[in-house]
């Protein structure tokens, strides 16, 4: 089945396959390293935190 393949074909396809695998793995690593986008704006979270629960524990200004 493989006897008809020349040495050149075997070597070229092996090198191209190894490079494709390496590229795929690197692309996966790049995707992992990308920082996750923030779910919400930090200022909005700070503004809407449950401060009403702190009324007799800690005094926090009403405005931002």
């Amino acid at each position: 089945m493989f006897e008809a393949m020349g040495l050149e074909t075997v070597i070229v396809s092996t090198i191209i396959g190894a490079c494709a695998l390496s590229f795929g793995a690197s692309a996966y690593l790049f995707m992992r390293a990308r920082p996750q986008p923030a779910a919400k704006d930090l200022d909005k979270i700070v503004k809407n935190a449950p401060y009403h629960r702190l009324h007799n524990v800690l005094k926090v200004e009403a405005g931002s």
Partner: protein
Amino acid sequence: MKGPLKFKRRPATALVAMANSLSMGDAVPGDELRQIIGAVVPDRAERAALLAALRASNDPDCGLAVADLLTAYATEAAKAEAQARDADQVIGQWAQRLAAGALLASFGAAIAGTVAGGLAFGLTLLSFSGFIFATASRIGGRGKMRRRAQDRDSADSLARHVLEAGKLKQEGK
């Protein structure tokens, strides 16, 4: 230590409010909590404000709840760091080795004359760019790993300081 009478609305006080709310049985969205802790932990001013707010609070359990949240965040960061290290050592290292092997093989084939001309040049170029791409992706992954390790250390130390602040307050110092 006498803190200011009123604290501003900032990530540190938002964290205290969320911890207090959680200890009273209210639900707080996990992603908001994570984002607030992520804003408090690396910032010196927020860390100082958190310690001051906890010393000024009237509830001694508040510090414990905050310290527990910080420890949970540190554990999460440690897990993410371990995952990033695994990906770097298992995938990153082998991607680099595979590309380096392909580069050597293409050199060998070109020198032996099995592959010649434009094809040999193309293969060498392909494997060389694969090696550079793999190295760049490893550098990016290791940067993330380092950031997570820093987060873990900072959250750990802040949790320790929060507990210390609670102890000092109880002793009336």
